[in-house]
């Protein structure tokens, strides 16, 4: 086989595509790698199927590999896996460009979208139907939020960083424990999203979310930062806790909602698949993944300089999981 095969997350796909294309252009003696889409889960599954010519070399993931996955990888003979964290993805709330400015906090989001919210220390079914009921500073719109579906890793981040955070702040945890739930149950209660049609799961990509906002101008959507930046003329981004999301604010950690992006390399393939090593090094080069590189231009939040160096060193050093 003379072509690198990559599979996995569709969030990472655009970045991997850019790198693959440029890799093919720069290293004319190697073919352009094939980058499959199909989701982190499916990618890791293929990755963990075994080592050898007929298995993929790299799995892209928008979440870290789970321990159980590493386990099954090892069982299948994929013992040496190199993890590369190449940057971050900011998660933003946005509305139609023509609408008013939005300032959100995790509490607002929790109160608007959770299935049960704490009112006077008790958990009750979410009574809110308009954003203005949640927070009088918000517009008088019916609540209609397009949030990532449960297949997406983004959903986890959304629950973690918005719902649970908002829940804690709004006293939902206490209310839940007061109603007799243990700690785990309380968290689960916090992040349960209402199912009355006001919060709509989107299992497709952000283009679908954008189309929904197009057809419902009073909807709020959750997007990746990169997607928003590419469609800034159609969307208006909301601040979260007063911070406007941008590559800078996410990179500095000011903006709270973001997640790391990964890819995993099969170390055993480095010596076998021509160009694999070069590809990974090319990916991690500042030319690609740095603040001035095309990935950042597309919307990737680059990792801080030190972290990038650390990742490069870890890869060349052959560090495995």
């Amino acid at each position, binding site marked *: 086989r003379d072509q690198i095969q990559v599979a996995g997350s569709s969030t990472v796909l655009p970045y991997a595509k850019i790198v693959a294309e440029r890799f093919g252009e720069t290293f004319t003696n190697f073919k352009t790698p094939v980058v*499959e889409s199909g989701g982190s889960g499916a990618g890791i599954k293929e990755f963990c199927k075994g080592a050898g010519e*007929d298995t993929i070399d790299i799995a892209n993931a928008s979440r870290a590999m789970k321990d159980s996955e590493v386990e099954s990888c090892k069982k299948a003979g994929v013992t040496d896996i190199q993890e590369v964290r190449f940057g971050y993805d900011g998660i933003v709330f946005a509305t139609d460009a023509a609408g008013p400015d939005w300032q959100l906090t995790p509490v607002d989001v929790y109160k608007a979208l959770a299935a049960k919210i704490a009112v006077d220390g008790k958990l009750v079914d979410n009574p809110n139907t308009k954003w203005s009921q949640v927070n009088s500073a918000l517009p008088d719109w019916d609540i209609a939020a397009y949030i990532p579906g449960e297949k997406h890793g983004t959903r986890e981040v959304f629950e973690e960083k918005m719902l649970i955070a908002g829940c804690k702040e709004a006293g939902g945890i206490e209310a839940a424990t007061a109603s007799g739930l243990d700690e785990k149950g309380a968290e689960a209660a916090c992040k349960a999203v209402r199912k009355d049609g006001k919060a709509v799961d989107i299992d497709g990509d952000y283009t679908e979310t954008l189309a929904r906002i197009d057809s419902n101008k009073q909807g709020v959507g959750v997007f990746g930062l990169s997607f928003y930046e590419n469609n800034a003329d159609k969307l208006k981004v909301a601040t979260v806790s007063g911070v406007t999301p941008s590559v800078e604010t996410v990179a500095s950690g000011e903006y709270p909602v973001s997640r790391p992006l990964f890819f995993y390399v099969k170390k055993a393939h480095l010596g076998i698949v021509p160009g694999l090593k070069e590809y990974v090094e090319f990916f991690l080069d500042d030319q690609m993944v740095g603040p001035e590189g095309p990935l950042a231009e597309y919307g990737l939040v680059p990792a801080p300089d030190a972290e990038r160096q650390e990742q490069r060193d870890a890869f060349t050093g052959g560090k495995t999981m």
Partner: protein
Amino acid sequence: MTDITASSLPVAAPPARRDIGLKKRYAAEARFRMYGIAAITFGLVFLAIMLGTIISKGHTAFWQTTVTLPVTFDPTLIDPQNKRESDPSVLIKANYDKLAQQALISKLGIDAKSKPEVAKLKGFLSDSARIQLRDMLVANPALMGQTVTVPILASANIDSAFKGQVDLTVPEARRKVKDQQITWMNQLAAEGTLAEKFNTGLFTYGASSRPETSGVGVAIVGSLYMMAIVLVLALLVGVAASIYLEEFAAKNRLTDLIEVNINNLAAVPSIVFGLLGLAVFINFLGMPRSAAIVGGITLSLMTLPTIIIATRAALAAVPPSIRQAALGLGASKMQMVFHHVLPLAMPGILTGTIIGLARALGETAPLLLIGMVAFVANYPATPFDPATALPVQIYMWANEAERAFVERMSGAIIILLVFLMAMNLTAIVLRRKFERRW
């Protein structure tokens, strides 16, 4: 001849008209006809709407904004140390962006020293100019030092702006095209340097992360491979299976089992065929990932039930008297089937094939699991090389963040539909040939 006297005979008085409910029946007849027309109109109107949307969105994809610039292959820029004799890789690594930029600067008459001005040029020309110029020089090193007029693609954003797809009323900060670039664009367009040209690249390029250089070339080849495989496998196997089941199989439990089975396979979600393809062809038989061969076989299995069901219905519709006539002449059953029944069933078989192929041609989900929903830039030389397919390209473009991909997606859909129409046309011709009433 009739005797003349006969005509003087009295004519029968018409009997009392029976009431056979004619009024009502004709109303029913008219209604029935109306339903038919309404049904067809409904279908056609929908077709028109769908085609209208697709074409109105996609026709612009067939045009691409191009800037024709005189580019000087300046050795001092390409090979400042003059090492190209000893190290050919210099030619590959050189800064070709600069060449294009210089050409543009001199064309626009900008002050090359004004940094902010020059910075705004970034993103005016396609990033692919670099590769284009490099390939030109590598292919013909004699160009070094010469000035050549090269058509260079404008970037996707400029392309959109030039096609009027960018809302210029939006504040500059929230657009990807800056006001200065628009001014330049208009300036170049007025000179005739910048113009829309037929987008051959759409047909020849493979996948790319740059909208302006992405095309369906690889996808078309992949789809063609797969369609060829599906046509051969599904049609042959499908017709063979139908013949066996309809004409030869004893009517017993096993036949029922197979029949139910086939009907059931038609209801299996297409992605499950992807699971099957992954498990059987890739994991078990060790066929390559992302390859058209696996895709083709998988889609064949998916198309098979459709073809079998249609073919069986068509075979069953051939009147028994034809079969008897053939058998009575001493034709064997095999001859009866292949000489008479099959040709008579042909229109139905063709219909099934068209519907099956149309589905196979537009299907993405099963390809997802066998790795064909992928970024593939190189052309597949054989069906065993990585490839994508038209619907996959459509699907992937539909999910791109950049707006410019939307028009490409619609363009790709138009191409897909043209494929389909070509198939349909063949079917019409064949059907006309075979169709008979008896």
